C-alpha cells in the first residue's frame, strides 16, 4: 500500500497541525518545559485535591443553605481554623467556585441539557420539598420566586460535577508527578500520553449527585442519566475554562456600547489558554487566586528553577502562570489527540483529511490564544539588556 501524505496546511498555525499529525504536542519538548509542566501540575494536583473535596462537601452538606458562612471549613469549625482563615492562611476556595459558576453560566455539554430536563426538575423538586419541611420562610421564598431554589440546585449539581472532575484530574496529576520522580516521565509527549491515557481510562466514569436529607437519599443526578466524565465534565470544562472563560474585571469594558465583549458567549476567548499572565494595572491575573494557592505547593526543583529567573521569586505568580499555561496546552493536546476522529498515524487519505479538518477547526480557536507565546518565550529570562539605539 502506498502512503499518501496530506499536503501541508495553509493554516496560520500549520506548524502545530504538523506537530499534532506527527504525534507531538503543542508545547515544544524541552527539558525546561518538562520540569515546569510536571512541577506545576504537581502543585496543581495538590490544590485540585483541596478544591475537589470542598466542592463535594458544599454540594452534599451545604445543600440549599442560603447563608453558608462556613462552607470553606469542610465541616471542621474551630477557633484556630477561623483565625487562620481570617489571617488568610488558607486555600482560596473562591477560585473553585469561580470556575464552577463559569461552567454553569456557559452551560455546555450533557450536564447542562440534563439540568433543563423534566427529570431533573422532578428530582430537584423532591429534594427541595424535603429540605423545606419546617422552614416557612423558605417556603414563602419558593412561592414568591419559584425558579430560585431549582437554580440553586443546578448550581449544587455543578459543585458536585466539578468536584468529581477535579478528583480524577488531581489523582492524574499527582501520579504524573510520582512517575516523573521515578524517572518514567522525561518528555512532553510522555506527559501528554499520561494525561490522555488517564482521560481515556476515566472517560466512562459516571457523574452522579445525591443529597441525604432527613435520613433519606435524594438522587438528583442518577447514574441512569448517563452523564459521564469525559463528555459531560471534561469536554465542557475545556470549552468553558480553557477557551471561553469570562472577561476579567478591569481588563475590558462591560459597557455594551463599547463592544469589547462578544454578545455570543461561544465566541468568548478569555479562558486559561488566552489569559495574559501579566497583571495590568490593578486588574490582577485572571487566575490570581489559583496562582497564589499553587505557590504553597511548588516542588523544590520548580521553586529553584524560578529562583534562577531574572527576578527570582519577585514575579513568582507570573512564572507560575506561564508554567501553568504551558501545562494546560499539554492537557489540551491530550484532549485533542484523544478526541481525534482517526488515529494520528493513519495512512488512509480520507482519514487523514478528516483529521486535518478536525485539527484545523481546533487551530481556528487557537488563533488568538497564547500558543505562540508559550512556544516562543521561555520562562527563564535573557540576561542581556535590550539594545534600542
Amino acid at each position, binding site marked *: 500500500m502506498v502512503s499518501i501524505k496530506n499536503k501541508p496546511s495553509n493554516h496560520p498555525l500549520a506548524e502545530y497541525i504538523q506537530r499534532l499529525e506527527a504525534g507531538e504536542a503543542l508545547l515544544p519538548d524541552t527539558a525546561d518545559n518538562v520540569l515546569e509542566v510536571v512541577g506545576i501540575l504537581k502543585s496543581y494536583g495538590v490544590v485540585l485535591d483541596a478544591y475537589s473535596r470542598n466542592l463535594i462537601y458544599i454540594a452534599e452538606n451545604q445543600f440549599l443553605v442560603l447563608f453558608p458562612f462556613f462552607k470553606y471549613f469542610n465541616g471542621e469549625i474551630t477557633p484556630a481554623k477561623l483565625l487562620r482563615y481570617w489571617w488568610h492562611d488558607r486555600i482560596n476556595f473562591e477560585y473553585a467556585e469561580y470556575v464552577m459558576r463559569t461552567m454553569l453560566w456557559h452551560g455546555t455539554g450533557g450536564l447542562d441539557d440534563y439540568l433543563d430536563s423534566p427529570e431533573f426538575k422532578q428530582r430537584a423538586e423532591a429534594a427541595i420539598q424535603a429540605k423545606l419541611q419546617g422552614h416557612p420562610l423558605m417556603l414563602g421564598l419558593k412561592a414568591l420566586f419559584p425558579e430560585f431554589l431549582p437554580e440553586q440546585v443546578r448550581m449544587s449539581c455543578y459543585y458536585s460535577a466539578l468536584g468529581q472532575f477535579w478528583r480524577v484530574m488531581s489523582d492524574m496529576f499527582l501520579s504524573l508527578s510520582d512517575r516523573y520522580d521515578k524517572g518514567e516521565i522525561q518528555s512532553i509527549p510522555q506527559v501528554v500520553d499520561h494525561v490522555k491515557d488517564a482521560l481515556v481510562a476515566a472517560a466512562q466514569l459516571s457523574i452522579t449527585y445525591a443529597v441525604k436529607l432527613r435520613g433519606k437519599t435524594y438522587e438528583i443526578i442518577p447514574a441512569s442519566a448517563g452523564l459521564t466524565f469525559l463528555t459531560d465534565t471534561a469536554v465542557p470544562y475545556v470549552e468553558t475554562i480553557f477557551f471561553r472563560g469570562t472577561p476579567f474585571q478591569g481588563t475590558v469594558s462591560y459597557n455594551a456600547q463599547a463592544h469589547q465583549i462578544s454578545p455570543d458567549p461561544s465566541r468568548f476567548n478569555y479562558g486559561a489558554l488566552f489569559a495574559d499572565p*501579566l497583571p495590568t494595572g490593578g486588574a490582577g491575573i485572571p487566575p490570581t487566586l489559583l496562582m497564589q494557592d499553587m505557590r504553597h505547593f511548588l516542588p523544590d526543583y520548580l521553586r529553584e528553577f524560578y529562583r534562577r529567573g531574572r*527576578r527570582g521569586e519577585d514575579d513568582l505568580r507570573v512564572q507560575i502562570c506561564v508554567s501553568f499555561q504551558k501545562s494546560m496546552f499539554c492537557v489540551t493536546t491530550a484532549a485533542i489527540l484523544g478526541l481525534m476522529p482517526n488515529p494520528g498515524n493513519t495512512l488512509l487519505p480520507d482519514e487523514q483529511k478528516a483529521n486535518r479538518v478536525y485539527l484545523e477547526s481546533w487551530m481556528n480557536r487557537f488563533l488568538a490564544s497564547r500558543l505562540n507565546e508559550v512556544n516562543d518565550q521561555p520562562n527563564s529570562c535573557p540576561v542581556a*539588556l*535590550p539594545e534600542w539605539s
Partner: protein
Amino acid sequence: MLSALIWMPMLGAALIGFWPKGMNPNRSRLIALVAAGAACLWTLVIVSQFNPSHVGQQFSEFIPWIETLGLNYHLGVDGLSLPLLVLNGLLTCIAIYSSDVAIQRFRLYYALVLVLSAGVAGAFLAQDLLLFFLFYELELIPLYLLIAIWGGHRRGYAATKFLIYTAISGILILASFLGIVWLSSNTSFAYDPSRTQTLPLATQALLLLMLLIGFGIKMPLVPLHTWLPDAHVEASTPVSVLLAGVLLKLGTYGLLRFGMGLFPDAWNLLGPWLATWAVVSVLYGSFTAIAQKDMKKMVAFSSIGHMGYVLLAAAAATPLSTLATVLQMVSHGLISALMFLLVGVVYKKTGSRDLDVLSGLLNPERGLPLIGSLMVLGVMASAGTPGMIGFISEFLVFRGSFPVFPVQTLLSMLGTALTAVYFLNLMNRVFFGRLSEQVINLPRVQWSDRYPAIVLAVLIVLFGIQPNWLVHWSEPTTTAMNASFPVLTLRTHNFKFVTSQEGQELFSHAFKRTLALPEIPSPMSHTP
C-alpha cells in the same frame, strides 16, 4: 570652619587621585563617600551653629591672598547660601552612592565628583567676587570631563557645547565683576564694598545685563538653554543629579547674590522685563517638555521651566518672593534630583528612556512598582501638589510675585498646569497599561537603587508638611536682602516705587499669613 567644606572633598579627591597603585573601585568609592559624607555632616554642624536671626555673613574666614589683584580668600555663609550648601552636601553623597560600582576609570571619576562638589561649595561660600569666579570656573572642568568621559553616545558634542556656553557665561560674569570694581574705583573684589548704588543707572543696567546673560546661561533661561538638554541626556545619572540639583543653582544663586544684591536699582528697572523673560522660560520649557519622547529630556526641559519661577520671584523682589527663590531652588534641587535618579533606574533596568518603547512599568510583578510609585510622588511634587515641597515653593513664588507682576505670575502659573500635563503623560505612557513586550523581563531592582530616591522623597514630603524647618534659616536673610531695596508694588493699575520699609510692611502681612510664621524682628529695627 567653612574651609572644611571645600578642603574635605579636595582632600578626598587628592587621596583617590594620588593613592599608590592597587586601589580598587570599592576603596575609591568608600573614600569618596567618606569625604563627601564628612563634608555633608560638617554642613549639618554648621547648620546647628548657625544663628538664623543674624542676617549678615557668619563663620567668616578671611585670608589675604593676592593683594595687588584685590583678591582675598574670604568665605562666609548666610541664609541664602546655607540651604544650598546642605543641598550640595546631600546630593554629592547621593551621586557617589548612586554611581555604578563597576564604573571605568573609577579613580578619576570619584576625584572629579569631589572636586566638583568642592568647587560648588566654594562658590556658595565665596565673599569675594573674584574668588566666586574662580570657584565658578573650577566646577566647569570636572563637569566637562564627567560628561565627556562617562557620557552617552554624543558625549563629546554635549560636553563641548556645555564648555562653550559656560565659558561664555564665565567671561560675561568676569567682565561684569571687573566693571563693578573698576568703575566703582574699589581696590578689592570684596563683596560688601562692591555695592553699586553710586554708579549711574545706565552703567548698572549694562553690568547687570552681563550678569543676567552669564548666570542666565547657567540657570538656564530660554534662549540660552540649549546646552542643558544635551548635557542631561548624555550625562550619567549621578552627574545629572548634580547638574540639576546643584549646578543650575549656581546660576540662580549668582543672580540673587550679585545681580539683585549689587544692582538693586538696575534690578528694579529691569524687573518687568525679567518677569516677562521668566514667563517665556516657564512656558517654553513646559511646552517643549510636552513634546519630548525621551524621559530625561522631558525632565531637563521641566528644569528649564521650573528655574523660570526663580527668576519671576527674584524679579518681583518682595520679601515673600525673595524667600520663595530660596525655597524654589531647594525644592527644584530635591525634586529634579529625584526625577533624574528614577529615570536613571528605569534606564538601567530597561535600557530605554523612550516613551514609545516603555509602558506598564508599574506592573507589580515584573515592573518597577516602587520606582514607579516614587515617580508618582516626584511628579506630584513637581506639579505643585499640596503636601510636598513643590507646592510650598511654587505657592510662595506666585503669592510673592502676584502683587507686583500679576499678568506674568498668572502666565507662569500655567507652567504648573503644563507640568501636570507632561509628567502625567509620562506616567501614563511609561508606567500605566500593560508591561511592554520589549521590556517584559526586567531585572530586579536592588534596594541600593532605591535608597537615594527614598531619602529624597522623604525630604520632599517632610519639607512639604513642615516648610518652617526650611524657611526658618533663610527668612531673615532674604528679608534683609530686600531691606535696602526699593520695592515695586502694584497699586491698582500703576506701578509705584515705595521705600523698602513700606514694602516690607506691605508684604509682611501676606508673608506671615501664608506661612503662619512667628513674629521675627525686622532687621530694619536694629539698624541704628
